[in-house]
């Protein structure tokens, strides 16, 4: 199995909640640790407490950081929530270059700080590349997003994504 143990990532609430809704938080299991800002931890605890109890994913709760002027300014510009604000600050203070989030505004703000972002769909698809999940499983999970999760995606776009990845993986079946 390909391992990326050296990688630390920071998580926003969306992917933790959405992946757990799909019983697929294990797609994060090859990361050395997933840093969870305190505000994000509280948000996930409120909406999906069981997501924080998975033993195969190393979720590490972080204390609330002092938010820098730069992140404060971006938060106003992009109307970010506390969790997104803390997540960006953690990326800065821990030199982490990957934030997982499903929020467009958070992704825009991160981009302006040269922080890479990926969301639930990317993480699910990546799990095949990392040999954590079989293509057929991930195709089923993608198809289950509208029914099983609170992640909202235009149905025709989701169908296009499913068709695209199925075409890429057809040799793997």
């Amino acid at each position, binding site marked *: 199995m390909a391992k*990326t143990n050296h*990688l630390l990532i920071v998580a926003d609430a969306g992917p933790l909640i959405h992946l757990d809704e799909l019983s697929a938080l294990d797609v994060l299991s090859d990361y050395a640790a997933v840093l969870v800002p305190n505000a994000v931890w509280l948000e996930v605890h409120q909406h999906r407490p069981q997501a924080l109890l998975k033993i195969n994913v190393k979720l590490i709760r972080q204390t609330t950081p002092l938010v820098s002027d730069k992140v404060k300014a971006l938060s106003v510009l*992009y*109307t970010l929530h506390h969790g997104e604000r803390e997540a960006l600050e953690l990326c800065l203070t821990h030199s982490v270059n*990957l934030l997982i989030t499903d929020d*467009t*505004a958070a*992704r*825009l703000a991160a981009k302006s700080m040269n922080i890479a*972002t*990926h*969301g639930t*769909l*990317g*993480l*699910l*698809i*990546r799990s*095949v*590349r990392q040999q954590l999940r079989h293509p057929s499983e991930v195709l089923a999970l993608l198809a289950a997003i509208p029914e099983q999760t609170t992640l909202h*995606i*235009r149905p025709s*776009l989701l169908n296009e*994504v499913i068709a*695209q*990845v199925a075409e*890429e993986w057809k040799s793997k079946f």
Partner: protein
Amino acid sequence: MNNTLNAEIPNQLWQQAQTLVQQGWASNLQEVVNEALRRYLESHQDVLTESYIQDDVKWGLHGED
């Protein structure tokens, strides 16, 4: 044309919006709601969201990390 919106708002947000109005940072609650909605829509345009999803698919399939 203006439209009417009925929505339940968490108490904390409601209190914060009221405070803004009472302190004179906004003339009324409608202004607060309009401004919040406008800013949200600006930063959540569907074309942006879709482009991020396409980036995710590309990264998921062919990324190196």
